[in-house]
């Protein structure tokens, strides 16, 4: 069909944490690609910071992938989200996931965990 949704995922291993930067739209069509990228991250890589700053759209399909990653890595503050857009913050709030994940306004804050 005529609509092409693009999503970019970049994985970067930094000292003390792993940064996954996501951009574009995350939905049923692109969720598998995000899941695939996140599956490369192991517990040994330290805290996982997922930067959603450039994500324009996120629905339940994307939320499910984030939750699956959190489950696999052991939960409890291991996966930290960076988000500033109202649409993303709202969907996190609506689903209560803003309390499941730690949500930070910047990557720096998320990396330091404070």
């Amino acid at each position, binding site marked *: 069909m005529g609509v092409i949704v693009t999503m970019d995922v970049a994985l970067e291993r930094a000292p003390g944490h792993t940064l996954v930067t996501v951009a574009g739209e995350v939905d049923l069509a692109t969720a598998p690609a995000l899941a695939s990228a996140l599956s490369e991250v192991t517990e040994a890589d330290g805290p996982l910071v997922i930067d959603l700053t450039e994500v324009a759209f996120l629905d*339940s399909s994307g939320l499910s992938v984030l939750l699956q990653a959190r489950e696999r890595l052991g939960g409890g503050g291991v996966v930290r989200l960076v988000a500033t857009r109202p649409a993303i913050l709202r969907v996190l709030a609506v*689903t*209560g*996931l803003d309390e499941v994940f730690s949500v930070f306004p910047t990557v720096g804050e998320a990396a330091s965990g404070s």
Partner: protein
Amino acid sequence: MSPPSRRTAEGPQPRESGSGAEAAPRAARRGALHAASVAVFTIVVALALGLTIASTVSISEAKQRYLDQQVREVSSALQAAVAAIQQPLITSSRIASKDGVAAFRVSAQAEMPPFSSMSLWRVANGHAVLITVVVPPGGPPPALLDDPAAARRFIASVPASSELTVTALFGLKVRGLGYAERLSPSEGAYVVYGETSLPLNPFIGPEPAGSPFAGLDFALYFGRAQTLPTLMFSTVSLPPKGRSTSEVVPFASAVVTVLSVLLGRPPGALPPWVPFAICGAGLALALLAAALTERLVRRRESAETEASERGEERDTQRDIAQTLQHALLPEEHPTFPGVEMATRYVAGVTNLDVGGDWFDAIAVDEHHLFFTVGDVSGRGLGAATVMGSLRSAIRAYAVQGDAPAEVLRKLDGLVSVGRDGYFATVVCVLLDVAAGRATIASAGHTPALLVTDRGPSFVDAPPNTPVGVVGPRAPRSVEVQLPAGAMLLAYTDGLVERRDQSLDEGLESLRSAPVDWHGPVESILAGVVEHMVPGGAHDDVAILAVRRLADAADATDEEAAATWVLRARQAFTRDRDEVPAARAMVLEAVPEATGDVRDALALLASELATNASLHARTSFEVAVRCDDAARRVRVEVTDFAGGEPTPRTPTPAEPRGRGLRILAATASAWGVDQAPGEPGKTVWFELGLEGPDSQGPKTPSVTV
């Protein structure tokens, strides 16, 4: 070898067309010359002949003039010669009479030549007596004296007059002329006689330059007879080789015959070949002119024949086309309770083939009328066949209850511009007569005209590609409200398209047509046709108009509150890539949603599409409706699988069901519709367009 031609009546191959009866006179006509060609030939030949004759006459007259002129010159030279001979004779005779014979002899001596001899005679009582003869030394005696008796008779017969008497002396040894002059009696009784000699061979050739006869071609005969013995001399050989004329002219007391001969061309005359040239050229010209005329006449004749035959063919073909067209169109549209309907088909004046325009109206059930107007590209049997199949298919889909957009979607496989070379523009309208709701889907068709109390305006239906052209998305439709008395008019583009104006001008002309929009539908159509295509349509035109009557409106109190207007409807496959497409389609259908509302709309649409994609067996359909008055949007997603979605309290480990939680939290209203006994369900939500909706359920908290 020239290839066999249809124009050759007796070609190596039989004529392919034309009955024998028709071919025979045509062949005969080709064989015979036309009167016009014959006339042209005759006229030109006559002109040429006239010119030939005129030139011939002119040449002949010039010759005759020359000959006559030559005669006159010879004659006047002869007169001069006579005078030159007479004068010395008179002088000598007077000297003899006055001064005696001795003086005569002295005088006569001085006069030779031209005389070869002179003699003096006395005549008395009818007797002539020779007195003396003067001959130059060594010269011959006068030939006259060869016969003394005859000589005396001749001298005695010389009259006393001013005229010189001449006699011819043509013998074997001598040829000459004798001249005698007798003075009047008062001057004495003497006769003076002189002789001149003529050449023995009369053919003397051209006269020398100093001679009075120089340059003249002639022969002189003594007397009237033209015989060799009487021939004095000739400058040409005889008989003459050229044209000649003879004339008897006086010569002293006798006559001579002048034969004037023309050698060569007289000066100033046309060359002798001119008449032949004129004649030959004239004949050639006549043939050429006749051939040219013949060709022109035949060409014109054949053009006239062809034009008349083509005219007949056109008429016949147009009749056939119209008959076929009417056979393909519905004989009578159904009468439907609550509506007033009229149709019109105007055949294009310039087209001979059957066209691809059509209209149709189908009663779906007692409340729903489905009508359509369409136009297959191109003309001829192919276009008519495509039209027939599209019409039948639309009928079938309409009767089974398909919505207009769905009908258009299903038509897509029936015709393909790539495969068949045809495509069609169609407008499909499903009119809920009781509710006054018209669902309109247009596949590249000219906009339908909606006439309400506020006047005529065009329906702005979502643009879909024509049937047969692959489009980027499934067809969409629009819903318009048709109040009691309102009318929808659908038509094909032949009504509004002109070569000399833009489509917009044509549409405006239709919208502002001077007709009574609230009069009978039949007369509205008559007025519209009269206004738009006064001289007959250039292209075919099909028109269908439906007015919802006031009676129908009365029965719809219950539905009167229905204000949802369909913005778009589209089908999607269950492919997961269709989810963003469905989301985009919803956002596109509601451009007035912005900011947070737009985010919410995208999220909800995505959740419903995701849900349908996961549950549907094959495809799902998304419909977007708006209630513009209440500023609300309603999105319906229908899958074709059973079962009702159940919102469950999701756990982090159990992702499914979270979408419905989002739905419940974000939408201002939502629900699931499922018709009993039918597979599939419709999940829908409504959202206020003004801003964040506070009426929805509060966000449920999720506990870990």
